[in-house]
């Protein structure tokens, strides 16, 4: 399997001279495996270039088969969706999975952001076949040759983490999430607080343990490292995590590779590269390779 980073930035697309090396496009990661459908994780602005690449890979002649796995539908994860060129080529087939209770409602969520008054894209103009699939966190399913598992992530409105297994290789896509530590994030608006209710603290432990189990034996963990520790302490209610937590999770699950992902809009190229070297020096080793998701780069599993 090959994992390619098309968008690695969190919150919003960043066009700034200090992010040109790591990249400013919002979340989109592609997983390719020979003879299997291509999987796209999220559809931030990075999905546009992903679509262009795929037009050279079978999607251009209408024989492509793709799967979208959305962590959630906050705008930075879906804002490139309507610009994905393979949707406009007849013959291509897609299955789109995102958290929800009804398939039909899911389609409305994507159509609603694309059309008036917010834009002028009518998703009924897609020429490819698109099947919408609402998933609930905790569900497992098979798509083509892939076995896919989901987990609840700690994010306002709740996000979903994906574990994809194929021919003995395992990739885990885990964004957006806070550590299951200070507060349990769910529906509604969250303000900063440190949880003291024993019942909720027990839930936090339970969800945290479930994530440790979820990543176990993965070949690569791509993890939300939006914050530094100091930033996290200021904003535990934003639903984002730190490299330290990613490293802890990877070690718990005996995961040999963990990549920093979903970078803060103002994490400049230099900052990220310097932090990466620091983590590699202090925490990395023969049992854990720590990497940085950079736009346009690929990792072989």
């Amino acid at each position, binding site marked *: 399997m090959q994992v390619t980073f098309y968008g690695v*930035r969190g*919150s*919003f*697309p*960043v*066009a*700034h*001279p200090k*992010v*040109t090396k790591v*990249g*400013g*496009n919002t979340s989109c990661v592609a997983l390719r495996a020979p003879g299997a459908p291509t999987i796209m994780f999220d559809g931030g*602005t990075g999905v*546009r270039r992903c*679509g*262009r690449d795929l*037009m050279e890979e079978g999607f251009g002649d209408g024989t492509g088969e793709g799967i979208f796995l959305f962590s959630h*539908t*906050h*705008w930075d994860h*879906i*804002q*490139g969706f*309507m*610009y*994905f*060129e*393979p*949707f*406009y*080529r007849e013959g291509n087939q897609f299955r789109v999975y995102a958290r929800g209770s009804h398939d039909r409602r899911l389609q409305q*969520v994507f159509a*609603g*952001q694309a059309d*008036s*008054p*917010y*834009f*002028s*894209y*009518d998703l009924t*103009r897609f*020429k490819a076949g698109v099947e919408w699939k609402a998933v609930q966190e905790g569900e497992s399913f098979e798509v083509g040759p892939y076995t896919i598992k989901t987990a609840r992530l700690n*994010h*306002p*409105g709740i996000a979903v983490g994906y574990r994809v297994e194929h021919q003995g290789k395992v990739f885990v896509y885990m964004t957006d999430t806070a550590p299951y530590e200070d507060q349990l994030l769910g*529906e*509604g*608006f*969250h303000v900063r607080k440190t949880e003291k209710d024993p019942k909720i603290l027990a839930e936090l432990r339970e969800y945290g343990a479930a994530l440790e189990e979820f990543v176990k034996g993965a070949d690569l963990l791509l993890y939300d490292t939006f914050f530094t520790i100091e930033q996290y302490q200021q904003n535990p209610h*934003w*639903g984002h995590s730190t490299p330290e937590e990613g490293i802890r999770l990877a070690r718990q699950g005996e995961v040999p590779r963990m990549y920093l992902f979903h970078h803060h*809009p103002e994490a400049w190229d230099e900052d990220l590269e310097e932090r990466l070297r620091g983590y590699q020096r202090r925490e990395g080793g023969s049992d854990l390779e720590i990497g940085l998701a950079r736009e346009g780069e690929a990792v072989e599993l």
Partner: protein
Amino acid sequence: MAAPVGATQGYGGNTPCVEVRGADGALIALDAGMGLYWLGRSLLAGPHGRGKGELTLLLSHTHWDHIQGFPFFVPAFIPGNRMAVWGGGVDHLEPILEGQMNPTYSPLVSLSNLGAQVEFGELGTHPTMTVGGVTITHLTYPSGPHQIVGYRLEEGGRSLCYLPEVEHPSGEPTPALVEFARGADILVHEAYYTTEELARGGLSLAGRSGPPAGGHTSFREATEFGLAAGVGKMYYFYHHPDHDDGTIEAAVAAERARLRVRGAELDVEAAREGVEFEV
């Protein structure tokens, strides 16, 4: 859409936002694209960082690329700051920005969770308004299937006209818009396509197979519009995400050459992020 790629760094890849300061410091922002985040960041050292700031936000319309910076405007989260939001090409702006905060799309859930005081005005009942010493008039016009609001700001006999998205369906400068922009010292006018791209029916954001994007104009049409309106200086604006710095430079050079041949005095330039000028 925002274009965060290296090849656009000279002119910038953020979606529309223009900061205007009146002589007394009154702050007006034209559109709330991703540029608004960077404006908000630059304001934090001043009164907006202490909850004593004000902003008048004038929206041309509510397509995402013109409002996507709004939820990331940091001063909006600081209690005490006050924002007045106008425009949008629709009768009721508030439900649309409230919809932007909907929990399906945003962790903010509702406008009521912003710390600052945000008020929405109805342009229909305010043909003319003033912010500090700046007088603001507007014109609502169709661009493709959408309604866009253009703005004209005047102070001390100087004027700036903002037409961020424009279509001239006949290929000739649209008369009502020419009248609106007439004699402006500065005109900000879109130039989304090159002449060749417009002749081919546009350049879809979803590639060659994608749906065509109507409601736009070209560098050449923009120049003709600036000449017809007799403006002092024109900034080509709303650069296409696939136009790299070289494409924009070549298009501007071609327009300047055409103007020279005709002996026209119109000064033209491509709008570039971070550039400040006196009107």
